[in-house]
């Protein structure tokens, strides 16, 4: 009888302790696109730049291929620890002073499907391959920090980390994971970037974000 009562007591204690832990809230902020099965997480105090804001910003003055690409976007979101980061910061190449994580999931356009390659994935934002070759005279100061294949459940691509310093600008480090789905219909791009000093300062946080990036595909 006592054992039973003891058991019941333990049960109640566990339940209430669990309830208490909820006061602090989840340890991280999860960015989830269930439709496409794309997941990553950022520290819990980071601030979201919404899909809608980014779409609106990208749509301003966009024509032709750019507009087609916008229509093909399935999910784009950005996170940063600062409230000052807005959609315009996200969509420009100016180096932010705080880490900025940006996810973009987009269908490939018909003409892109045949052209897609690991190099085209590397060259998603800046022409990494030509800059890295040293043959491009117009290339800024460029350093490839890491370049490795990344394989997920339904997609594969390259994880590239590089640092470049534009003329009359500050040095920026970009951690870019660009994947294409195995059926070559969709590309998944996660970019985490900030000034090189900021990047090396927040290296651990950025690593956590990049390693949480998971592409599972449609359920």
């Amino acid at each position, binding site marked *: 009888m006592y054992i039973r009562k003891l058991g*019941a007591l333990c*049960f109640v204690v566990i339940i209430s302790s*669990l309830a208490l832990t*909820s006061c602090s809230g989840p340890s991280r902020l*999860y960015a989830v696109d269930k439709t496409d099965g794309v997941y990553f997480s950022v520290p819990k105090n980071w601030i979201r730049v919404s899909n809608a804001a980014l779409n609106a910003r990208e749509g301003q003055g966009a024509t032709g291929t750019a507009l087609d690409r916008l229509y093909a976007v399935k999910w784009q979101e950005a996170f940063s620890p600062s409230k000052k980061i807005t959609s315009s910061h996200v969509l420009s190449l100016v180096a932010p002073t705080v880490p900025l994580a940006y996810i973009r999931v987009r269908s490939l356009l018909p003409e892109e499907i045949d052209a897609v390659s690991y190099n085209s994935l590397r060259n998603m934002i800046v022409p990494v391959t030509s800059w890295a070759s040293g043959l491009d005279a117009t290339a800024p100061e460029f350093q490839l920090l890491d370049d490795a294949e990344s394989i997920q459940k339904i997609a594969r691509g390259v994880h590239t980390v590089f640092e470049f310093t534009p003329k009359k600008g500050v040095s920026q480090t970009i951690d870019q994971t660009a994947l294409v789905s195995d059926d070559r219909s969709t590309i998944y791009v996660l970019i985490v970037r900030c000034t090189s000093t900021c990047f090396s300062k927040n290296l651990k946080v950025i690593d956590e974000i990049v390693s949480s990036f998971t592409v599972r595909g449609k359920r």
Partner: protein
Amino acid sequence: MTESSRPRDTDRKTRIHLSVYDRLKFTLLFTIVFFILVWADLADNPILSAKDAIVSGFRTRWWIFFLLGAEVIRQAHFGLAEMLAPYHGIWQRYFAAVDSLIHKFSDWTRYRISRVVKALLFIVMLSVVLSAIYKETPVKALFMAPKALWSALPLLGQLLFGVFFVVIQFVAMFWFLSRGGIDTYFPDDIRTRFSDVWGQDHVLNRIRENLLFLESPEEIEKHGGYVPGGILLWGPPGTGKTLMAESMAGETGKPFVFVDPGAFNNMFFGVGVLKVKSLFRKLRKLALRYGGVVVFFDEADSLGNRGISSSGGRFSLNSANNTSALSGTQCRGGTYLSEPSVNLLTHNLLTQESFVANSAMGGGNSGMGTLQALLTELSGLKKPRGFFNRIVRRTLGMRPKNPPKYRILVVMATNMPEALDEALLRPGRIDRMYRVGYPSKAGRIRTYEGYLSKVSHSLSAEEVDKLATITPYATGATIKDTINEALIMAIRHGRTSITWSDMIKAKQLKELGPAEDVEYIDRERHAVAVHEACHGVMAYLARYHMTIDLATIEKGSDYLGMVASIPPDDQFTRWRTEYEADILVSLASLAGERMFFDGDNSSGVSGDLESATTIASFMEGHWGMGITVSSHASNRRFEVGAPGGGKGKEDGAKEMRRALSDRIEDNLSTLLEKALEILVENRVKVLALAHALETYKTLSGEDVVAVMEGSVGPLVDGRPYLNSNNIAAIEDYHLAALNAHKSHQKSDVVLPLFASTQE
């Protein structure tokens, strides 16, 4: 300490303590639900940590904690009620008030309300579940469900087909098994008419009456009666039960359904029931279409009974003619008796074995509810039938029509009525029971005439009358058979027309079987002739209620010789003097053998003694024809013992109260002495008849009378037997045969022969 019983719930001041499980079960349930949802979240998001899943679960699944809180409050309430009597009291009063409020509704209303609430709850739950599946609002999800159901229909159809595929095999099998065994005849299919049934007029009249009511039921129904629904025809085999049914089929203007005796014996459970049901469905249909129907169950005993021993009761007197049981002796003892005496002996033999016989019958029913189904169909609930009648009419607010009057006449025939179930024979099922017995003399004459009219013959009306007289227990079947036999004899003798002698020979052949054509050695032939002559003379002199039909010393399959008698009239009561005469005829063989063979006698008298003893026993113990009055049947039933004993008392009463067997023996001894006296007085007649038998082997009744009276018979001229010289010759022959018998040698005197013209 006084022991007291556990207090009633109403006597408690506080609430009864809940068990730990009852306290925690809902908390446990909610916890489990919570963790299942957490697990679902974890499965949904691969990068989610367990801790974060739980933590976010607490935020997003707030409703679980709401329910949990409600549960905690409930348990707190219970806890208080368990500890604080006043608190419990308040709630008790509250619930009593609520109860009385609720019970203002009738039970039926409350049931309906609860049903509606449950249905609504089910719909709500369903919509919540569906909304979770479709990721839509519950209301919208509810409307999306039928679409899913529609798309699932092919699968449902497949499943249904699977079920149907299995079921159809059984349906088909049982359908095929429940066919057959039932034939329907329509008017004019059968040409047999009542006029073809001869000698059963009394039964026919009753059947005609039944058919009349079937044809015009208004006659009885308008006066508040009902048409009798069932007839049982029972009686010995061959008396025309089936023929009667056939003639009914021919006579009636209604369809006639013939049920095969084996129709209800089946391999599987339930097929018999199905058959009965389909039979009666058919009967109802026919009855409606044609205004009536006759159904005939031949050999109804095959329907069996439900294992109840039917020994005794209505049909305890078995009418089967098992004469072979009596004739297993060298001299065919039963033949000397009148037919009722034979029946009596048969019955006596059968009742000894009846227990065994009946128990065997109990097991032999067609079984498996077939009989019960038949009983119900014959007289069951009068329920409205038909889909339209019961469902559609009721749906439209109309009362179902009562079933119409199905005029079904059930006719059953059996020669083993004791094997039928008692419930089958009750009025309402079988209203009328007719014994189809042996035909009357008029019936026999009609039957003979009927069958003779189909062949060529030279029999006069008087001869046919005589034929009917000398065949008292002939049935339609035996008469037909005898005439056919006579025709065969005529044809084998090169004639096409039946003569009187053909008939007599055929009758003898049918009754006695073929003679074995063995020649006795002289002295044995003489002994058999004397034996039979003693019977014959005694029958002629002492038995007035029977006339001699036949005397023979030709060896048959189970006798050496015999004297057969027949009753000249149909008689239904029997008297003491008649039974005594029967015994005298039986005992004459023993008395005669002892008299003519110097006290010697053969084993051939065993059958005679058996029948004599049986009759004497019944006279003494049953019929009040002996010294005492009490019935042995009752004595045995009440186990008081037969009158007898009276030890030590030397008076007249003791003499009267000796054991039953002593009294029977006394009676037989007296009658044996009397028989001896009669034979001594008529020694000449015995020798004369023995001589006639040795000469002609087989004599008809008239020939025997001719020998007795010294007149001219059809075969034998009796006049020589009045001549004293001839008698002396016969005596010499007898003495020589007696000596040969004693010394087991051949007799040196040959059988004297007398010319029939000799004066």
